C-alpha cells in the first residue's frame, strides 16, 4: 500500500447525525449505512436463477420485496430490481452475479454508495411518513415487504416496510434515499414528528453566499 495513504475512512451521508427517538418509544429514526446495494436490470426470468443461486431469494412480485437473513430484493420495475446485502458484501455479490449472468442481456450496477437507509419504527412511524408521503400507508393498503418508489416532500426514495405492527413497537419502515437528499429527509422526518415529542434536527446549512 502507498506509504502516504492513511487507512481508509468510510463516511455515510448521515455520519453527522445520531439516532433519534420520540418519548415512550413512539418513534425511532436512525441511519443504517453501508448495506450492499446492487441494481439488477433484466427480465425476471433471466435474473431469477442467478439471484436464487447467489442469494437464495425468489423474485418478488410487483411492488413487493423478498427477504432472508442476509438479503432483501426489492422490485423497482418489471425489469429492475434492487438487491440489498450485508455490509461490505457488494464485491462478492457483484462477482457472483456477474459470473452467473455472463453473456445475458442484463445490467448489474453497484449502487452501494448511491443510497443510504433510513430506518423509521414505532407506533407513530406511519403518521410521520404521511407528513411527506402521498402513499396510502394504512395496514390495509401497505403491508410488510411492500415497496414503493415515491417522493417524500422534495426528496425521492424507495420505501419498504420490513416490520409488522404485530411485532414489538409498531411497524418498521426503511427508506432508501440518495446521498444528497439524506440530510433533508432526515430533518423533514424529525420535523414531521415534532408533534410526538421528537426533537427537531435542522438541516446542515450556513454556506456563505454573498459575494
Amino acid at each position: 500500500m502507498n506509504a502516504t495513504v492513511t487507512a481508509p475512512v468510510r463516511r455515510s451521508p448521515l455520519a453527522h447525525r445520531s439516532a433519534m427517538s420520540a418519548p415512550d418509544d413512539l418513534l425511532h429514526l436512525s441511519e443504517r449505512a453501508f448495506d450492499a446495494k446492487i441494481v439488477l436490470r433484466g427480465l425476471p426470468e433471466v435474473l431469477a436463477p442467478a439471484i436464487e443461486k447467489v442469494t437464495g431469494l425468489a423474485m418478488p412480485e410487483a411492488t413487493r420485496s423478498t427477504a432472508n437473513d442476509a438479503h432483501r430484493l426489492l422490485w423497482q420495475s418489471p425489469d429492475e430490481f434492487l438487491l440489498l446485502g450485508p455490509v461490505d458484501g457488494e464485491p462478492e455479490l457483484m462477482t457472483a452475479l456477474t459470473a452467473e449472468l455472463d453473456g445475458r442481456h442484463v445490467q448489474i450496477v453497484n449502487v452501494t454508495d448511491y443510497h443510504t437507509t433510513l430506518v423509521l419504527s414505532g407506533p407513530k412511524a406511519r403518521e410521520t411518513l404521511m407528513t411527506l408521503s402521498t402513499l396510502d400507508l394504512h395496514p390495509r393498503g401497505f403491508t410488510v415487504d411492500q415497496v414503493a418508489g415515491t417522493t417524500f416532500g422534495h426528496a425521492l426514495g424507495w420505501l419498504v416496510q420490513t416490520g409488522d405492527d404485530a411485532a414489538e413497537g409498531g411497524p418498521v419502515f426503511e427508506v432508501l434515499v440518495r446521498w444528497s437528499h439524506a440530510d433533508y429527509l432526515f430533518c423533514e422526518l424529525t420535523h414531521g414528528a415534532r408533534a410526538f415529542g421528537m426533537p427537531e434536527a435542522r438541516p446542515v446549512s450556513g454556506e456563505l453566499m454573498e459575494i
Partner: protein
Amino acid sequence: MKRYSALELIRQGLGGHRGWDRVWRKPEPKPSYDAVIIGGGGHGLATAYYLAKLHGMTNIAVVEKGWIGGGNSGRNTTIIRSNYLFDESAAIYNHALNLWNGLGQELNFNIMMSHRGVLNLAHDEGEMRQLKRRVEANRLNGVDSEWLDAKEVKNFCPSINISGDIRYPVLGGTLQRSGGVNRHDGVVWGYARAADALGVDILQQTEVTGILTEAGEVTGIETTRGTIRTPKVASVTAGHTSVMASMLDIRLPVESHPLQALVSEPIKPILNCVVMSNAVHVYCSQSDKGELVIGAGIDAQLSYTQRGNLDIIEHQMASLMELFPIFSRLRMMRQWGGIVDVCPDASPIISKTPVKGFYVNGGWGTGGWKATPGSGHVFADLIAKDEPNRIAAPFAIDRFTTGALVAEHGAAAVAH
C-alpha cells in the same frame, strides 16, 4: 355616446344615475360582416377596436361564446412589462407598452394603468448573466430597464427578504419602472365600449360551431345563432386556439395548460411594485383593493378544465415565504385557473394560415395580457391588409418550419 368624467359622475349622482348610456349594444347578428373576430377577450376586442378605428372596417363583429373578458383576460394577474430579450419581442411588447400609456384617455375608460415598476429577481450566477444580458439588450432597444443589486432591490421594495441565509438568496434583479399593473375588466370593457361606439357588433353568448370555406378560402362561420357570411375570420381565443384551428384541420405548435392564480384577503398597502422570480417561482403584486395578487406556475398536463392542482399552489406559497416571510399569516381568499396555450419558443403566433381569410392570434402562453393593445393593433393591420407588418412578421407560423424561433423562455414569466 355620453363621455365619462368626474363632472358627469356628479351630474348623474344628482340625477340618481338614471341617465347613463349602455356600455355596448346587444345587437342581433347580421347575415354578413366584412370580418368576424372569434373571441371577446382583451386581444379580440382590441383587434376589433383598431380595425374600426384605424382601418375603417366598422362592419365587423366580435363573436364570444360566453361573456366578454371571461377567459384569460378576466383571470390574469395583469402584469405589464416589455423587458424581453430578443429584438422581435422587444418590438411588439414595447409597442404594446407605448399603447398602454394614455389608453384610458383614448378609450375614455379608466383602465387603472399603474406604472409601479416590475422587478425580475436573480438568485444565481446563471440568472444574473441572463438578466444582465436582457437589461443591456433592452437598453439598446430603447426599452426602459435597469439592473439593481440586492440592496437596491430592498430599497425599491422594502417588504422583500434579501437575507443571505435563505435557500436562494436575492443577488440582484432588473427593474422596469414603466412596467406595472392595470385593471383587466377595465381594459376589456373600455375596448368593448369604444369598439361598439364605432359600430362593431359584440355578439355575446354566441358560439362558433364551424368555419365555412370554399376553394380554400373562408366564406363565413356557423354559430349557435345562425350562419354569418364573411371573407375574413380571425381567431383570438387564447387557450382554445387549437380548437378553432381544428375546425379547418389546421394543427398548431401549441399546447393548452392550466395556469392558476390567487388573491389574498385585502390588507392595507404593503407591496408597492410587481415582484417576479424564476428560481423561487413567485410573481406577486398588490391590487388597488388591497389583495395580494399571486400568479402560480402552469400545470404540466394539457387541460381545458380551467382547474390546476393544489400542490402547485402549495409550492407557490412556500416560495412566497422565501421572499416575503411577512405574508405567512395572510390568507388566500380566492383561487382560480385559466387555460394558456403555450408555444415551444414561448412566443406568440400572429399569422395568416394555409386557409385564405383565416387568421390566428394565440400561443401567448402566460404572457399575453401585457401585449393586449400591441397584439390587437398589429393583428388588425394583418387582417385589414392580409400582410403582416414589420412587428407581426416574425411571429408567423412558418417560423416553426424554417427554424427562426423567437426563444424567449428566459424572458417569459415563471411558468416557463
